[in-house]
């Protein structure tokens, strides 16, 4: 256990060093090595990329908490904008919202649903006439495919229970953090950067909340924590097909040394961060790989027809 953790940390440390050595050039080339071949990404390209991800998150949480897509809320959030056509959302047959039994988890779902909806509205507003419509989304086959890939089983329904909802949420939140973190360096406008940093923080609040809730519900059994480790490993592999670096850490217990030269204080990894305790960062190409399940044409899993906008 300790050996495995040490090895993983070593990998992270060495990858971090490698990344710092390569510096900006490497990051820029990684960014442009995906399907996003635009010579120069504008702030609007980056914001539209974020908008696609926010559509996905907003639909997931609003369906989980309220049982409807965001365009069917009492105060609807438009999904077709600027004369565009919105894709549909694929759901399981006879879909209903999560049958929450724990009022705390129900409240978390509702809060997150509202906040992700506000992110959609904010980005649409910030982008104005440049905003893209919602692409086709899949919240049914996607989870089954990912579960299979992660070795969780042939099927996974995040709308089935409190625990499964939290695991479904887990799939998204840390990814949101790494996406905004990776995008920060590509944003030109200081005001846009400030807003993106503020959304990054909220995604990290959500991620911290979800991890803390999963840890509480797991209550030391390791069942749910084990699922988070499988999901984190899968995300890391999709973002880094060669297997290194490892840029994702699931819920587990590690030993930390704190203020001693060596020590064994047990810590819960409720923070998804590197060996310097800095949140991981991913390029748009890496994010695309995660949300489309590594499909070569970047069409698959959550985005069966790809994303809308320049970065796709």
């Amino acid at each position, binding site marked *: 256990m300790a050996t495995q953790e040490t090895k993983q940390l070593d990998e992270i440390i060495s990858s971090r060093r490698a990344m710092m050595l390569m510096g*900006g050039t490497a990051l820029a080339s990684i960014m442009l090595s995906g399907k996003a071949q635009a010579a120069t990404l504008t702030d609007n390209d980056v914001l539209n990329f974020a908008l696609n991800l926010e559509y996905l998150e907003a639909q997931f949480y609003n369906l989980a908490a309220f049982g409807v897509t965001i365009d069917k809320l009492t105060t609807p959030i438009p999904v077709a904008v600027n004369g565009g056509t919105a894709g549909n959302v694929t759901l399981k047959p006879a879909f209903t919202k999560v049958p929450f039994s724990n*009022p*705390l988890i129900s*409240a*978390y779902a*509702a*809060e997150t649903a509202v*906040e992700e909806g*506000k*992110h959609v*509205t*904010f980005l649409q*507003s910030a982008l*104005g006439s440049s905003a893209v419509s919602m692409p086709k989304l899949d919240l049914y086959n996607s989870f089954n495919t990912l579960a299979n890939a992660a070795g969780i089983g042939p099927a996974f329904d995040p709308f089935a229970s409190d625990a499964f909802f939290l695991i479904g949420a887990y799939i998204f939140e840390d990814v949101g953090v790494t996406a905004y*973190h990776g995008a*920060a*360096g590509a944003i030109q406008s*200081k*005001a846009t*950067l*400030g*807003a993106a*940093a*503020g*959304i*990054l*923080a*909220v*995604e*990290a*609040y*959500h*991620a*911290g*909340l979800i*991890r*803390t*809730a999963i840890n*509480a519900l797991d209550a030391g059994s390791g069942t749910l924590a084990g699922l988070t480790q499988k999901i984190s490993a899968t995300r890391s592999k999709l973002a880094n097909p060669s297997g290194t670096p490892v840029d994702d850490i699931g819920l587990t*217990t590690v030993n*930390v040394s*704190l*203020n*001693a030269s060596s020590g064994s*204080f047990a*810590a*819960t*990894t*409720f*923070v*998804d*961060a*590197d*060996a*310097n*305790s*800095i*949140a*991981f*960062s991913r390029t748009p190409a890496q994010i695309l790989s995660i949300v489309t399940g590594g499909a070569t044409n970047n069409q698959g899993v959550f985005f069966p027809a790809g994303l809308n906008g320049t970065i796709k």
Partner: protein
Amino acid sequence: MEKVNELIRKAVSRRTFLAGAGTAAATLLAGCSSTSSGGGGGTTPPPGITDNDILNFALNLEYLEAEFYLYAATGKGLSSADAGTGAGTTTVPGSIAAVPWGTSGFAQYANEIAQDEVNHVRFIQKAITSNGGTPVARPNIDLTFFAPLAVAAGITTTPTFNPFLSPQAFLIGAFVFEDVGVTAYHGAAGLLTNATILGAAAGILGVEAYHAAAIRTLLVGTAAQANDQTYVKIANQVSALRGTLGGGNETTLTTGSIVAADTTNAIAFSRTTDQVLHIVYGAAGGAGLTKGGFFPNGLNGKITATAS
């Protein structure tokens, strides 16, 4: 509809701000008006303030956080190597020892956060050195300030609050810091010029938000389990005090509102260095404040005095 109009108004004012960026920055410098929440980062550093000055500002805050969590986790503070040459002293409550965690299960959270904050201290020290600067040593820190802070917040009538005495009190102590860290890094993001440093700061911002969320979730979760909202109420009294000292930028913690963010757009709050200084010095009152509260001799570095 009201909300949409508000958003449009905000978007328009943002464009106006962008158009007049230089002027707006000049106004900030001259008048030091408080910034609006939400957008954040749209400011320009005062002349002569470098990335290293901002990193050193952050380093002071990380020393404070690291000391708090290390004492909570181990009963001891930073090693002399981590505190830096010429480090100040840290004042702690008498008979300090690790928090008696009992069956709370919070120790593993405290240990994780403590290690993160130590890592932040070490990382920022190295980042400043790599960037050709000199990291400041730990300033004098006073961890007994929680007691008068609790009186100022209306939590107690006498200065007796000690965050190291129980798991619940620890959550309140942690609550005092984490959201402030988020707003401080958010505010700093717009001031940094070096893209690599900005990327690191954004990553630390993310980690502070993970911490803040865990503390807030534990507070409401524990309260629900025990059917006792006492510590949530106390946290909100702390929040109200931070709001008074730090230009608002707070939301009430409830079961249905864990994230601290602007309710119009769900974007985390942002604070200027002045607003952060007022909070950690524990005093309102405009320009010229140079020390107090958690930092009895002030911060080390260039950003130490409030300009507004």
